[in-house]
């Protein structure tokens, strides 16, 4: 019974932890402009993140080495250093987006200006990183993030024409009003939102933080293979809500307040409140993960002591890195840049940076030096190579598409 509870908890945390500000914004924007015609990208992204996360979790558990340690070992100091610079910058961009997301969500809950919420949100993130136990942190954020199920409830309450929704999705039929390049730009963005590199830094380092064993490996596989697809369903529900309410009204999503309007229409103030709490939790959880990832990547590249399971004084440089990253994020937000814009940038650049983490993990997962008998099987490798192609194509196409479409405008 207790074991079953543990499995359930793990799955629920994985679902709640799947959606972050990137998924939220990108799915809503896409839903309001393209209906469900990009749902196939979510499916591709979810399968990809399942593959990628389970591979990096397995590598971390078997070899005891987290992702960026492996990148440094396999690529050497120079290539890994360039990789670190890119990964750290994009991770910082994502952290900025998440902290901004918390502030926007709290603004919706309180009507206090987001600018006042930004320092408060960052301070709260730091306090949790400084003080709260890793498992508690992960489970609370994940379970509260589960409240985003409100989007699914809203979709049912809206009672849409399901046949019409399916027609938009299969075969994908983009609205005639949008340009082809814009369609593919958002396809890349959606892919980047589902397969964000920070998730992998966090996931593999978390495996080390929690001292995974062979037993945990099996549980982890269940968490990923069940939790992430269900989390992907939440993404689709967000897009569908926008497609049902906002698309016919001619509303293009450009702010968080628009994303929750379909929920209000469907479920009134109660469901709205539930979803807002869910958004706060999801962005807060993701802010924790991205802040940790900034510490993980730098510490692992330079061989510093890291980990939340240590006393902060025993991982001094790691904790200092996270503080600096949070301060930088607050600084960027205080220039009154729109967090939604930052989010849209962060998911596109995530797609650009993805091969940098994906390739080393794929290679090491096949190296018996590290993995012994736990190397990738044939099926995983076949899928792995397919995704290698997808990941590289998305990365190469991202910037040209961004320039060609004026960032999707």
């Amino acid at each position, binding site marked *: 019974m207790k074991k079953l509870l543990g499995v359930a908890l793990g799955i629920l945390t994985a679902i709640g932890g799947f959606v972050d500000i990137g998924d939220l914004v990108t799915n809503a924007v896409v839903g309001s402009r393209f209906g469900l015609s990009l749902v196939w990208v979510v499916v591709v992204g979810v399968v990809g993140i399942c593959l990628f996360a389970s591979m990096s979790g397995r590598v971390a558990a078997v070899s005891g080495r987290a992702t960026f340690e492996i990148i440094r070992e*396999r690529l050497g100091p120079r290539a890994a250093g360039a990789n670190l610079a890119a990964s750290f910058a994009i991770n910082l961009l994502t952290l900025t987006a998440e902290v901004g997301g918390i502030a926007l969500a709290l603004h919706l809950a309180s009507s206090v200006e987001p600018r006042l919420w930004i320092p408060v949100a960052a301070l709260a993130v730091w306090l949790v990183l400084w003080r709260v136990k890793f498992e508690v942190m992960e489970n609370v954020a994940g379970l509260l993030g589960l409240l985003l199920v409100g989007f699914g409830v809203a979709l049912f309450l809206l009672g849409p024409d399901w046949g019409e929704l399916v027609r938009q999705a299969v075969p994908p039929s983009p609205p005639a009003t949008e340009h082809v390049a814009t369609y593919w730009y958002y396809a890349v963005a959606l892919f980047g939102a589902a397969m964000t590199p920070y998730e992998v830094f966090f996931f593999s380092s978390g495996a080390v933080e929690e001292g995974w*064993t062979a037993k945990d490996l099996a549980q982890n596989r269940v968490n990923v293979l069940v939790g992430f697809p269900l989390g992907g369903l939440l993404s689709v529900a967000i897009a569908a809500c926008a497609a049902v309410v906002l698309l016919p009204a001619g509303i293009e999503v450009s702010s968080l307040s628009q994303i929750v309007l379909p929920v209000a229409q469907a479920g009134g103030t109660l469901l709205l409140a539930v979803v807002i709490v869910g958004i706060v939790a999801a962005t807060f959880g993701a802010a924790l993960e991205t802040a940790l990832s900034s510490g993980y990547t730098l510490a692992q590249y330079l061989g510093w002591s890291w980990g939340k399971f240590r006393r902060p004084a025993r991982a001094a440089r790691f904790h200092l890195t996270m503080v600096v990253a949070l301060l930088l994020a607050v600084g960027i937000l205080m220039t009154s840049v729109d967090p939604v814009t930052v989010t849209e940038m962060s998911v596109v650049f995530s797609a650009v940076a993805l091969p940098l983490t994906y390739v080393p993990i794929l290679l090491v997962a096949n*190296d018996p030096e590290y993995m012994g008998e736990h190397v990738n099987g044939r099926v995983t490798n076949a899928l*792995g190579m397919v995704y290698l192609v997808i990941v590289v194509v998305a990365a190469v196409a991202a910037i040209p598409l961004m320039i060609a479409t004026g960032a999707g405008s």
Partner: protein
Amino acid sequence: MILGDLLDARVRGPGGEHLGTVVDVRLALETLRGDDPSPDDPDREARALSAQVRRRDRVGRARVVGILVSPRSGAPLLGYERTGVTAPWPVPQLVRRRHRGTFLVPWEDVAAVGPGEVRLAAGYRQEDAALP
């Protein structure tokens, strides 16, 4: 001397002819058995999933065996040309193809190490680069 002096240095034969680049330096690690300083860790078998972690031989001195010379330069190697790893197809196969002809020169046959250049002694030997 540091390893950085040798790695990526050009390799010239005794007559000054270009042979390739130093891609790695081979070492022989002494292993001292049964000298595990932390034997009482009950979880080790459960935690250690790989042979690498499970193996607890203490290492002693690390003697320099020789330098590995590839006719081609550059690119992170990943050691595919020295191991039998074949997955994920086709990455190891391509790397192996590119670095075909990598050989091991015993350290005794290295005559001089200058800035960015290694010169081999007359009658130097070329041995198989594969890891045993």
